[in-house]
């Protein structure tokens, strides 16, 4: 199979304009005849649903939460990038494009990233018009701040709750369309499979989480906006419910899964405290502006931090990266923390933590200023750990945060299954091997508000007169397969809860395929995952029935998919014999221990195609052609 990304011809800055000038349009009278299924109501799903309904399409939207407003986009803290150049500090579409490509360690597709930068400004216009209360200056102008990987201030924010406010903006636009009867909203509905008719995505199978009813839904096209898969690591900053099921089911129906090994590990999270822990909490990257990261110089130094004298401390980021210091990029800061802990110099329970110390900043600026800047974060930290960061340094450790990989899509956001479109974190296209801060919100909204409304016509214009209905055997058969799978889960009747399998899977993933990966560790991970999966199908405990609200059943289904997906992630990591961005293979590093890319062999996307249960998936490569930028080595020394 050859992957055709359908990138428009012409110079990079003209591609999107030329695409739009030549794109297939669907007339208003015909839009009414086409039905679109949207799965997921985060930034991508809500914005796409609202916008497509405004355009006149019939939209049916599904989410597994009780309300579309609960999607995990709501938890994003920092901000959203846009090349507005309101600060007159030299920003431009080109710079945002270049920063994103470079930040992604030259593993993203140029044309998609340029388009993202190009539409970034209109996202801010749109959100302000919806009433998103972005931070303002005293004169009433929009405020901006700076984020990692950029030398300009292009990040718009709403306190530490930017994701919440952007999602509520998209949710309000969606709510307006639901109120007008243009979107049919299905809450508590979990997508459990994709229905193909003649090889095209034409519907989904869902389970009503309250009644257990399994039903099919037909449409002319399906949009998956179902987020990332960080929870394959069990402990992550993602919500408890975030899962891979929708994209994994699509993969098993023929959609290529691209670059699953590109995972982002965020350096500043509250460390793991014990087995009981259900998730990890992020401490905003902004803390590194005033906090200094250190560990004791000596191994196993158990003294309280205040008893360790200055000369016995190792401010390792300042030492190793003098020009960026504590503001080194996420992947590098995370790896350095791991190194220090591996050397036995970690602090706190289990030695898995490093200090983020504000003592100098408090001395320099006063406690009042620090309280104003970071008060809510210090409060959150104290609430969780019972320690005051005003009195002793915070303990932090890296944790899974975001996944750059996802279903492969072309320039139109269509997967390798005709009619199946994938938006937001669920697709792979824009962040390469590492995502910059404040770019996830930008991408989710770009895809939903401005890209898909323009690209959907390319597919739909080929679908006149090809209506499907849920009476067709394809729907009945897929529905039966879903019923069988639910039955199979319920029939195991073991005694081990899904959480336990999930936790064990997470340990394998984190230990063998986390911040440092090797051939040996990945092969070990694959064999351990297989064994765990086998155990799962013998011992999983699911009390209750399938015809009621059954949270054990929901979790078990998601963990079953993670147990399959984890193996693909490790296989991808094993096959990518280089280090890039968040993917660090210990065999491939510079003498200084930095990531070493092999552009001659791996400047390409790895897209995996399902070949049937038990068979090795087929690897299809999409070469990445860099026409506008030159490949370069990142340096933060």
């Amino acid at each position: 199979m050859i992957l055709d990304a359908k990138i428009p011809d012409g110079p990079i800055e003209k591609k999107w304009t030329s695409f739009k000038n030549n794109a297939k349009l669907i007339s208003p009278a015909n839009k009414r005849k086409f039905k679109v299924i949207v799965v997921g109501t985060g930034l991508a799903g809500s914005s796409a649903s609202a916008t497509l309904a405004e355009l006149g399409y019939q939209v049916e939207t599904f989410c597994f939460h009780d309300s579309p407003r609960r999607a995990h986009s709501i938890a994003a803290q920092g901000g959203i990038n846009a090349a507005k150049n309101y600060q007159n500090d030299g920003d431009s579409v080109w710079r945002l494009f270049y920063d994103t490509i470079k930040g992604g360690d030259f593993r993203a597709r140029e044309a998609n990233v340029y388009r993202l930068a190009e539409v970034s400004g209109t996202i801010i216009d749109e959100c302000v018009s919806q009433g998103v209360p972005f931070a303002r200056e005293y004169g009433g102008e929009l405020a901006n701040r700076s984020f990692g990987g950029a030398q300009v201030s292009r990040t718009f924010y709403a306190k530490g709750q930017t994701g919440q406010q952007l999602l509520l903006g998209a949710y309000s636009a969606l709510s307006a369309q639901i109120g007008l009867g243009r979107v049919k909203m299905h809450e508590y509905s979990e997508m459990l499979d994709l229905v193909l008719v003649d090889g095209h995505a034409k519907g989904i199978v869902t389970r009503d989480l309250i009644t257990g009813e399994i039903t099919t839904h037909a449409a002319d096209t399906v949009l998956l906006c179902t987020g990332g898969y960080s929870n394959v690591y069990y402990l992550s900053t993602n919500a408890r419910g975030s899962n891979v099921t929708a994209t994994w089911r699509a993969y098993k129906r023929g959609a290529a899964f691209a670059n699953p090994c590109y995972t982002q590990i965020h350096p500043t999270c509250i460390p793991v405290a014990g087995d009981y822990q259900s998730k990890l909490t992020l401490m905003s990257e902004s803390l590194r502006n005033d906090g200094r990261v250190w560990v004791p110089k000596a191994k196993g130094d158990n003294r309280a931090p205040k008893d360790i004298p200055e000369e016995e401390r190792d401010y390792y980021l300042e030492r190793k990266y003098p020009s960026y210091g504590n503001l080194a990029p996420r992947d590098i800061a995370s790896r350095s923390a791991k190194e220090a802990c591996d050397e036995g110099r970690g602090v706190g329970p289990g030695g898995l933590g490093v200090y983020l110390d504000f003592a100098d900043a408090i001395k320099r600026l006063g406690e009042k200023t620090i309280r104003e800047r970071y008060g809510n974060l210090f409060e959150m930290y104290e609430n969780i750990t019972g320690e005051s960061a005003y009195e002793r340094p915070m303990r932090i450790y890296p944790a899974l945060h975001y996944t750059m990989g996802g279903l492969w899509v072309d320039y139109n956001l269509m997967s390798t299954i005709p009619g199946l479109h994938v938006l937001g974190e669920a697709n792979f296209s824009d962040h390469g091997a590492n995502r910059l801060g404040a770019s996830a919100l930008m991408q989710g909204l770009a895809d939903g508000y401005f890209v898909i409304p323009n690209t959907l016509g390319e597919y739909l214009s080929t679908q006149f007169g090809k209506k499907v209905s849920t009476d067709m055997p394809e729907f009945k058969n897929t529905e039966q397969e879903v019923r069988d799978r639910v039955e199979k889960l319920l029939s195991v009747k073991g005694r081990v809860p899904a959480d336990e399998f999930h936790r064990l899977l997470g340990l394998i993933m984190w230990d063998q395929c986390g911040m440092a990966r090797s051939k040996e560790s990945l092969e070990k991970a694959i064999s351990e995952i297989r064994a765990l999966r086998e155990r799962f199908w013998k011992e999983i405990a699911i009390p209750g029935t399938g015809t009621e609200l059954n949270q054990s059943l929901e979790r078990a289904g998601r963990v079953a998919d993670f147990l399959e997906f984890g193996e693909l992630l490790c296989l991808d990591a094993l096959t990518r014999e280089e280090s890039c961005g968040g993917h660090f293979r210990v065999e491939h590093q510079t003498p200084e221990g930095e990531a070493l890319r092999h552009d001659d062999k791996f400047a390409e996307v790895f897209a995996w195609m399902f070949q049937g249960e038990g068979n090795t998936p087929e690897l299809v490569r999409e070469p990445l052609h860099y026409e506008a930028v030159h490949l370069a080595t990142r340096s933060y020394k």
Partner: protein
Amino acid sequence: MSTMHFHLRLWKQESNGSKGQFIDIDAKEIPSECSFLEMLDIVNNRLTTEGKEPIAFESDCREGICGTCSMVINGVPQGPGRGAACQVYMRKFENGQTITIEPYRVEAFPIVKDLVVNRSAYDRIIRSGGFISEHTGGAPDAAATLIPKPVADAAMDAAACIGCGACAAACPNSSPMLFVGAKVTHLGLLPQGQAERKSRARNMVRTMQEEGFGNCSNYYACEAVCPANVPATVIARLNRDYISGEVSQAVGAID
């Protein structure tokens, strides 16, 4: 790490139509550092291991922002302290303490199972007017409208509402007016929200009444429990905009 023991009185109810009751469960050897929901996870996983059905409760982000939590802990919606139920930690309780956990008791939030209630009434209130009608692509440049910082900050304070339903659950009248007022205030303070300001408040209050919620009678229990610190002053603004909306319609000034 030390462990603690608790005596739980948990609400168990099969479904909306069935009769519910409190059951007693001893939560033994709970790590003192874990969160309230992690304590429930431990209890549930133990029940599952014993072949018994776990207690159904909802949560998602577990960092206090998604609003999925919906339980009442010792009589307080979303539990003691600021923040949602997921932000409550066991070290705040006494070792050996009895803890009562039950669902919201609000007629407009029917019980689904155990601690899970259906809060879709809040979505329907938003759908009746909690937005600015505009369409994607029609927006002027974001810098075109200047909004003074104090106004933007006040709008943000109201917009911080997480839609969890604790306000209605805390209110003796089951009034959601802190929730409705938060949205009316957020949008009503901003210049973009002026065009629909009166009809928005009127439509949302009408829907709120149709859904079976009560009106505010100045207990301020909502403000006391709100995990997002939404101030009760939003209710004053809601009342003003609502009356203005009804009067404007009566005299034919708005549709």
